[in-house]
């Protein structure tokens, strides 16, 4: 496939790997921020091909994983109401709230629909003027602009039966929160390429300087990720900490001005709770006062739903690379992808779910002559 195959070329990958192997002299811990990058790393087995000294810590950039329990509970409540059509991206349906998920709401008669674009939800609202249509607006700076556009359109076209349940989050405050942790092990970041394609790179030089970490804007195909790793490791080895763009085919320094303008019009920055992490100041967006009428939280009066996340699992430590997933007592026993105890086990992009698969492989007794299938 054009523009995909080129960035999966095994020969070029081998060359980048050789260069990384030749550059690295001591252990480095890098965090890839975005869940899409984690997915690609696992999907292509990239982590197994890197030198042992290069550790990839899977960051909190999976939008499914970090959406707080409280917001899921609000979604479940709204989706259960009669007359509501609740629209969502597909992988949110399996995320457990308190006691159930959206699949079960559908099983109980709720009208829950998977859409591929928030504008599809708007169309459904136009086609069903006597129903309340709600779109579950989650995710980072990548999904925020289309969601903002949808609300903008709803107001412009006068579609009063549409609303948005918003739980958008922003990357830079999360990086900052991670770096401020006294136990933080992260020494360099692969910044999320698609987030930067919207927001540009202006937010990062200050972070790189303050915490003395290289931040390399990185794409999602195997060669993109290897190039991001190569440039981060090279900086670390040289003792540098600058912002670099290893994804220039998608990211311009200024980002996407039209998308940023749309965000500034529709949303305002707010404190946001991250599942398993807690509240990070200024780390999210909500609808601005001007668009409050389209906020599903207020329309359905669910703003008072407060869910305390029980102290059950150790995903926070996993997310920071302080423990490996299998060092959690619940891992693989109480907590599996089928019965996720925590957010990092929910999505296939989550660190625990990814590790679950490989640990199973590692633990398998192998005959003496064959210790690995690689």
């Amino acid at each position, binding site marked *: 496939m054009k523009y995909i195959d080129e960035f999966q070329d095994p020969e070029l990958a081998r060359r980048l790997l050789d260069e990384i192997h030749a550059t690295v002299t001591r252990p480095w811990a890098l965090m890839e921020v975005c869940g899409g990058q984690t997915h690609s790393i696992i999907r292509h087995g990239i982590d197994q091909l890197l030198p042992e000294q290069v550790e990839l810590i899977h960051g909190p950039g999976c939008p499914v994983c970090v959406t707080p329990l409280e917001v899921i509970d609000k979604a479940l409540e709204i989706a259960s109401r009669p007359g509501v059509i609740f629209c969502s991206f597909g992988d949110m349906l399996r995320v457990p709230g308190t006691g159930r998920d959206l699949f079960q709401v559908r099983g109980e008669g709720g009208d829950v629909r998977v859409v591929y674009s928030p504008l599809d939800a708007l169309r459904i609202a136009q086609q069903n003027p006597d129903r309340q249509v709600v779109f579950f607006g989650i995710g980072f700076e990548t999904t925020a602009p289309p969601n903002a556009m949808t609300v903008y359109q709803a107001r412009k076209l006068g579609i009063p039966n549409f609303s948005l349940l918003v739980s958008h989050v922003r990357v830079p405050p999360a990086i900052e929160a991670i770096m401020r942790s006294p136990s933080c092990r992260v020494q360099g970041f692969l910044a999320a390429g698609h987030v930067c394609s919207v927001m540009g790179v202006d937010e990062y030089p200050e972070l790189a300087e303050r915490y003395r970490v290289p931040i390399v804007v990185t794409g999602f195909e195997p060669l993109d990720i290897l190039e991001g790793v190569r440039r981060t490791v090279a900086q670390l080895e040289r003792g540098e900490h600058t912002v670099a763009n290893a994804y220039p085919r998608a990211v311009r320094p200024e980002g996407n001005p039209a998308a940023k303008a749309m965000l500034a019009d529709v949303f305002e920055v707010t404190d946001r709770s991250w599942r*398993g992490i807690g509240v990070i100041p200024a780390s999210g967006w909500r609808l601005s006062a001007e668009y409050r009428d389209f906020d599903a939280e207020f329309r359905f009066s669910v703003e008072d739903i407060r869910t305390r996340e029980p102290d059950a699992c150790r*995903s*926070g430590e996993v997310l920071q690379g302080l423990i490996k997933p299998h060092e959690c007592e619940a891992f693989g026993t109480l907590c599996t992808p089928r019965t996720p105890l*925590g957010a990092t086990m929910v999505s296939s992009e989550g660190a625990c779910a990814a590790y679950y*698969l490989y640990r199973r492989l590692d633990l398998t007794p192998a005959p003496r002559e064959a210790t690995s299938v690689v």
Partner: protein
Amino acid sequence: MSDTIDLTTSSVDPAAWTCPAPLRDQSRIVMGHGGGGTLSAELVRHVFAPAFGGDALAQLGDSAALSLGGVRLAFSTDSFVVRPLFFPGGSIGDLAVNGTVNDLAMSGARASYLSCGFILEEGVEMERVARVADALGRAARVAGVEVATGDTKVVEAGHGDGIFINTAGVGLIPDGVDLRPQRVVPGDVVIVSGPIGVHGVAILSVREGLEFGVEIESDCAALGGLVEAMLAVTPDLHVLRDPTRGGLAAALNEIATASGTGVVVTEREIPVPQAVAGACAVLGLDPMYVANEGKLVAFVPREHADAVLEAMRAHPLGLESRIIGEAVAVHPGMVVARTGLGGTRVVDMPIGEQLPRIC
């Protein structure tokens, strides 16, 4: 909810990061119970199999191999609830025949007779019923199978989705043929009969109104003839599966689990059409989990692999057959893919429905 963290004075305390309680058992049926993955398997194992009992059911295959009056018989049933009823490359009528014929073929049996039950929704246009029936009859003639008995029920408007069909079929299993996952041994060669993911993407493209530049037609086809051609090379094939719901990943996992061997596939050898790869990339799906309706995967003793592959490629439904991997002694019960870059990943059993990823 946790207290707000003041970034000027504090930082994230990882020990305080918490996670929600688990979601254990579903008290109601969810869509995933029909997805052909883990949830489906649990439903059968915990609800149906204990209630029904019986040795034949315990095989839990796509079709049951039975002994009746001294002959070996394959017996299978399948229900069809596809939406839309007509899609590029086929219709629910084609699926209703080919699905059951293929289940029988995976036992090595050539389907002889089908039953056909229609559940029609009040108000559905007669013309649509006739078109479906016509397609079903044509597919049966192509597959060389006779619809011998049937039934019709009508449910009230709103209680169905137009047309549901159930078919059951029987066929004879030739002497010397014994296709079961338990026969798989390390060293067996894994062959797939052509490009994967085509049916699932064809359905998605019409259901979701997505266009991928080229129209993708379902691969829906009856595989009895292809299986006959393979068995003509040697009756000693070990196991066959048609990777329908859950795709190639589910079929390989079922075989790995039931046989107690590991399976290794080489990703680059798995034929995935450009259009399928593109659609999957856009939707965040993995072609290995996307449904097929006219493909099979075979575990063949190494010494017969080349001859079987040649016979498959000589058949119109197996022109693009490929060796994609092998059964191994390591990691029993697990399917592992060698990635294009030389890494590995575990190809797990899908849990329920495959969900498009958000990013």
